[in-house]
């Protein structure tokens, strides 16, 4: 069981959260200008890091807010993070960067 620290609610059990996948994926500003390969790269391709990975979570059964953490995918350790989450590139994923 992961113990995840929500920046607003503090440390909570994993079951209160949903994994939102890789952080830092920014929706292209003008998708129409992309070719099919570039669009597939944004839509489907994943870094899938072995080791440290920046990823998004949503506190679904809590404050329902999104944030990002750094987690090791081999040890499942979550790195302490003074200012988790609120970096723009972490947050603007599916909603569209402007």
């Amino acid at each position, binding site marked *: 069981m992961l113990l995840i620290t929500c920046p607003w609610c503090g440390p909570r059990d994993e079951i209160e959260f949903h994994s939102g996948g890789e952080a830092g994926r920014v929706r292209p500003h003008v998708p129409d200008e992309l070719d099919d390969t570039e669009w597939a790269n944004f839509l489907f*391709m994943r870094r899938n890091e072995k080791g440290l990975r920046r990823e998004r979570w949503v506190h679904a059964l809590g404050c329902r807010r999104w944030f990002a953490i750094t*987690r090791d995918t081999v040890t499942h350790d979550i790195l302490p993070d003074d200012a988790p989450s609120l970096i723009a590139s972490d947050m603007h994923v599916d909603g569209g960067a402007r």
Partner: protein
Amino acid sequence: MSNKQRYSGFALLGAGFKGHRSWARVWRDAEPRPRYSIVIIGGGGHGLATAYYLAKNHGIANVAVLEKGWIGGGNTGRNTTIVRSNYLWDESAAIYEHSLKLWEGLSRDLNYNVMFSQRGVLTLAHNLSDVRAGKRRHNALLLNGIDSEWLTRDQIADYCPALNLSPDVRYPVLGATLQRRAGTARHDAVAWGYARGASALGVDIIQKCEVTALRREGNRVTAIDTTRGTILADKVGVVVAGNSTILADMAGFRLPIESHPLQALVSEPIKPVLDCVVMSNAVHVYVSQSDKGELVLGAGIDGYTSYAQRGSFPVIEHQMGALLELFPRFSRLRMLRHWGGIVDVCPDASPIIGKTPVDNLFINAGWGTGGFKATPGSGHIFAHTIATGVPHPLAAPFALDRFVDGKLIDEHGAAGVAH
């Protein structure tokens, strides 16, 4: 040659008179040679099957299988051994039915008992949308010439009396699809049977040999750096479920795959109580009883990515709750062992088989939670693809470039299991 010994009743009797001391090793644990025509990276069931069919069907025996641990120690040894072909979409149905047909003759083909047991797979429907989806899948299977039956609740009571069919439960059973030709197989025997078959045909199986780098010249891989030295290869096949991204990174291309833990567990052994496989998407568990008497239980993946071969306890807790919903009689059963494997998950829950952006490197990946059942078919069509350089017709729809041209094969839910 010792590794060409045939198994039979007479061989068993003969060895019995010699106190069973005359059995030869089942397969040859090879030392790496400097160069091979084809190197298969990954000594799981799919990789070993690929090597076997390369040697048997295509006459290419100058093949090495590189395994970083021991053969069959990854997902081949970490699944719930279910074999079925009741998939909704034509492309999936074709590939899994091809595999199921190979399963039906596999023990004879390999002269090795893989304990394939066609005990039937029952997929339960608990609500109206389950019933509609189940009947749709049932009809699609009939159109594809694959055996399928729709059972009413009374018919389920006859077929699987152990199930709780009371209407007064939270998720009552309303009906089920049944594939009688589906069932289970012995996972270790599959790895060993293919290893034995491949080894006897001249394939080198090299264990404790982890790939550390792929050397490229232009658009080709020329050499493979491993923990046991550098190996040259004309063609390379990558079959490393759970670690596909690592190898793709080494080769310099991207994959639409994420690695997730998939957990399973077995109970203490009990007398025969369940003679089929029962699956339920709505309460989400699948269960069968092994020949040793243990219940073998599985469910869905953990939501986060991982390479740790373990997952979180809430997933186990959820599937045990689902088990007791279906079989309250198992409530006092203790669980004996529990394990996790790392599965490749594609956005459309379908595999990737075929060419890559690197000319002489082929990939077989992304089987998600359903790879074990595909082992013979996957190896068969991947061997064809590598040997001829042209995707096998059954593999063609599963090309990596489907993510660019948009022809996804969306088996989420459609596959008869929630992913």
